[in-house]
C-alpha cells in the first residue's frame, strides 16, 4: 500500500503543474454564472484550453501517437487531470468523445475517414455526443426502437433519441439503431457515426429542473448515411455500447464539483447557535461521514490506476465510485442549504454565499443519480457482477424485439 507518487510520477506532476500554471486560460472576464458548464463563455474557454493542451501533447495523453496522443501512461493522464482540477480547470465537453466514443470507434473502424475524425476532436475543434438513450430505452439500454433500414449502399434512419448531453453544441454523434426487429433485442442493434448537420437530424434542447441546458432530444427523420459510417458489424451494436460504457467507467476518477473543503469553508461563514455552523456538533458529525465517502472516492480512483498500471481491467470501483459521488453531491448540497437556514432559499449568484454554488448543485444533483447509469443500475451491477447474485427474471430475453410488450 502506497499512496505516494513514484519519483517519475512526482517529476511528471511537477512538470505539468508548472506547464498548467504558465498556460492556463484566463477566466477572469467571466461572471460566476458564465463560469458554469454549458454557458457560452465557459465553453469558449474550454475549447481554447483544449487546443493549447493539444499543441503541447496534453490533449489526449494516453492515446497512441499515430492518433495524435502522447503515448503517456494512464497514471500520467490521471496526474494531469488532478493538476487541472487543482487549477480549477475541469471541462467535460470533450470527455464523451475522447474517452468513450472515439476509442470504441477506433476499436471497430480502422479506415482513413474514421482516423481523420480524431485530430479535430483532440484539438477541441469538434465535439462528439452519444445518441444511445430513447424515450422507452433508458436503463433498458438495449430497448432501442430507432430503426435503420438498408437502402442500396446507404442506411435510412428514423426515430428519436433523448438525454443526449451536449448534442446542442456537438458536431458528430455516435448512434445506436435497430437493424433487425425480428431477433431478440440485444442482437438486432447496429452502431453508426454521423455528422449532426446531416439532413433530418433535429436537436431540441431540454430545459432541466436546474434551469440549465445540457441535455437534448434528437429527432431523426429519414436520415440517410452511407454504410461506411457503420461502426462494427451489422447486429454488433450491443458490443459497441458495452465498449463505450467500459471506457466510461475507466474514465471516472477525477470528480468535479463541490467537496468537503467547500462545505467547511461555507460552514465557517455561517452563524449558528454558538459561533458558526462549523462549531455545531451535529454538523461536525455529518462532516465526518461525508469525509469518509469523499476519501473513498479519491482512494478508489487510485485503485483504478493501480489496475491500469498493472495492465489488468479495473474492477467494480467504477460503479461504487459513481454511486458514492452522486449521492455525496446531493447530500452535501442539501446539508449546505440546511446550515444556511433561511439563507438557503436564496440562489441569486449576486447575493448568495459562494455565488449560490450550493443552491445550483442542489437543483442539479438529482440528475447526477440518474445520468451515466442510475443508482439502481449500479446496484444491479454490483449485486450481479461482483456478488454473483442471479439476474432479474427477464421476460423479454428470448423474444423477437417486435413481440416485446410495451407501455405508452
Amino acid at each position: 500500500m502506497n499512496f505516494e507518487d513514484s519519483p517519475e510520477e512526482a517529476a511528471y506532476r511537477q512538470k505539468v503543474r508548472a506547464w498548467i500554471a504558465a498556460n492556463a486560460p484566463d477566466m477572469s472576464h467571466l461572471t460566476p454564472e458564465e463560469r458554469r458548464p454549458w454557458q457560452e463563455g465557459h465553453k469558449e474557454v474550454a475549447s481554447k484550453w483544449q487546443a493549447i493542451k493539444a499543441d503541447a501533447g496534453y490533449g489526449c495523453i494516453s492515446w497512441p501517437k499515430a492518433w495524435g496522443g502522447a503515448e503517456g501512461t494512464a497514471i500520467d493522464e490521471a496526474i494531469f487531470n488532478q493538476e487541472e482540477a487543482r487549477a480549477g480547470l475541469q471541462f467535460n465537453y470533450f470527455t464523451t468523445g475522447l474517452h468513450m466514443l472515439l476509442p470504441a470507434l477506433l476499436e471497430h473502424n480502422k479506415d482513413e475517414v474514421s482516423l481523420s475524425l480524431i485530430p479535430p476532436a483532440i484539438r477541441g475543434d469538434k465535439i462528439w455526443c452519444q445518441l444511445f438513450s430513447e424515450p422507452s430505452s433508458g436503463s433498458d439500454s438495449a430497448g432501442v426502437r430507432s430503426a435503420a433500414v438498408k437502402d442500396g449502399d446507404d442506411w435510412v434512419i428514423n426515430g428519436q433519441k433523448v438525454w443526449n448531453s451536449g448534442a446542442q453544441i456537438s458536431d458528430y454523434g455516435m448512434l445506436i439503431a435497430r437493424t433487425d426487429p425480428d431477433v431478440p433485442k440485444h442482437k438486432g442493434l447496429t452502431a453508426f457515426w454521423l455528422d449532426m448537420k446531416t439532413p433530418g437530424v433535429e436537436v431540441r434542447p431540454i430545459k432541466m429542473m436546474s434551469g440549465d441546458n445540457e441535455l437534448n432530444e434528437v429527432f431523426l427523420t429519414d436520415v440517410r448515411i452511407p454504410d461506411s459510417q457503420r461502426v462494427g458489424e451489422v447486429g454488433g451494436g450491443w458490443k459497441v455500447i458495452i465498449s463505450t460504457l467500459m471506457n466510461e467507467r475507466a474514465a471516472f476518477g477525477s470528480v468535479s464539483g463541490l467537496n468537503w473543503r467547500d462545505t467547511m469553508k461555507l460552514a465557517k461563514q455561517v452563524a449558528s447557535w454558538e459561533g458558526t455552523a462549523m462549531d455545531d456538533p451535529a454538523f461536525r458529525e455529518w462532516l465526518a461521514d461525508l469525509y469518509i465517502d469523499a476519501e473513498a472516492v479519491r482512494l478508489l480512483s487510485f485503485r483504478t490506476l493501480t489496475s491500469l498500471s498493472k495492465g489488468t481491467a479495473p474492477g467494480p470501483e467504477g460503479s461504487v465510485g459513481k454511486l458514492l459521488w452522486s449521492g455525496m453531491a446531493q447530500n452535501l448540497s442539501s446539508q449546505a442549504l440546511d446550515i444556511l437556514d433561511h439563507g438557503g432559499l436564496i440562489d441569486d449568484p449576486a447575493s448568495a454565499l459562494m455565488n449560490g454554488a450550493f443552491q445550483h448543485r442542489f437543483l442539479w444533483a438529482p440528475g447526477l443519480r440518474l445520468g451515466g447509469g442510475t443508482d439502481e443500475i449500479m446496484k444491479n451491477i454490483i449485486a450481479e457482477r461482483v456478488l454473483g447474485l442471479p439476474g432479474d427474471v427477464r421476460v423479454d430475453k428470448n423474444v423477437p424485439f417486435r413481440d416485446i410488450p410495451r407501455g405508452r
Partner: protein
Amino acid sequence: MNFDYTDDQKALKDEARKFLTGCSPLTVARGVLENPAEGHDPVLWARLVEQGWCGAAIPETYGGLGMGYVELCALAEELGRAVSPVPFASSIYLFAEALLVAGSEEQKQALLPLVASGELLGTVAVSEGPGVLTDQAVAAQVIDGKLSGVKVPVTDGLVAQRAVVLAQGASGAGLYLVDLTGPGVSREFLSTIDPTRGAARIAFDGAPAELLGEAGKGMELLSRVQDRAAILIAFEQLGGADRALEMARDYALERFAFGRQIGSYQAIKHKLADVFVKNEVARANAYYGAWALSSDAPELPLAAAAARVAASAAYWLASKENIQTHGGIGFTWEADCHFFFRRARHLALVLGAPRDWKRRLADRLELRLAAELAEGN
C-alpha cells in the same frame, strides 16, 4: 502508487487465512460464548503465539520479527474475518503500541520481548464506566507510585498480566504500567455483549504503578496509541464485515421463496450492494490508514479517525443486514450471525464510540484545512 497488498503480503495473508480456517472455525468462538468465564480460547491463543504472530510488527531490537504494519494489518484482517476469540488486539495493538509510543528505552527492552514471545499478555485500562472518556472524568489516582480506583470495562482484564492504566498524577492524567498479578489488584468477571472478547472490572487499591511516558500527558499519549490501534482494528472490522456480507450472499443464493432464490429479488440485491459499497468505503479508508501507519505519515491521525469511522459503520451495516437476510433463523442462538453482530459492536466501542471518533475526525479536518490554506492551496 499501489492500492493493494504486495505479493508477499498477499501470500502472508493467504497463509494466515488457511491457518485460521484450520484452528479458528466459528465453533471455537462458540465454545467461548458457551463458557464466557474463559474470555478467550487458550488453545487458539497458544497456536498464534507459536506462529510468532505477537511479534510480527515489533522491531527486531525488541525481540519481534519487525515485519511492518501492513503485514500486521493483513493478520488483523484475517483475525477479524475468523471472529477469533483471542486477546491479540489488547496485547499487540494497544499494550505493545503504548510501550512503543510512550515507553522509555528501559521499559521497551524489559517488556516488548516478552510481549513478542507471547510470554506476557498486556492490555489497557482506561474507561471508568458509562459516558465519554475525558480528562476530568478520570478518577483513578496515583499517589507516591500507588494506584487506586476502578477501571471498567477492561477488555482481556482477566487474562492480562500487565496493564497500561490511565490515572491522575501530580501533574494531571498520565499513563502508568501496573502488574495485574501483583498486590492491590482485584479483578472480577464482567458480562458483556460480546463474550468472545472477555472483560473484567478491576479495582486498584494501592497497586504499585510505574509512569509510562511523560507525566500529565496521558490523554495525548493515549490518543496517539489509539490512532494506531484504530487502524489495526479497522482491519479486523473490515475482515468481519466482508465475511458477514459473504454469509448473507451465500444464504441468498441457497434460500428459495416464492419459487426463486431470494438473492434474485432486488430488495435483497440492492441491500447487499449497499453493504458492499460501505465495505469498499471502509477498505479504502483502512488501506490509506495502513499506508499512513507503515510510513509514519503526518496524515496518520486524520487517516486513523477516517478508517475507524468507516470500518465501524461498515461492520454494523453488514452484521445487521446479514441477520435480516437470513430471516428468523438468523436471530437464533444456534445460527452464527450473532457472532458478527456482537463483535461489530464490541470493536466499535472498545476504543471509544464512533461518535467520539467523528468528533476527532472533524477536529483533524479543521487542522488540515487550516494547513492547506496556510500553504496557499
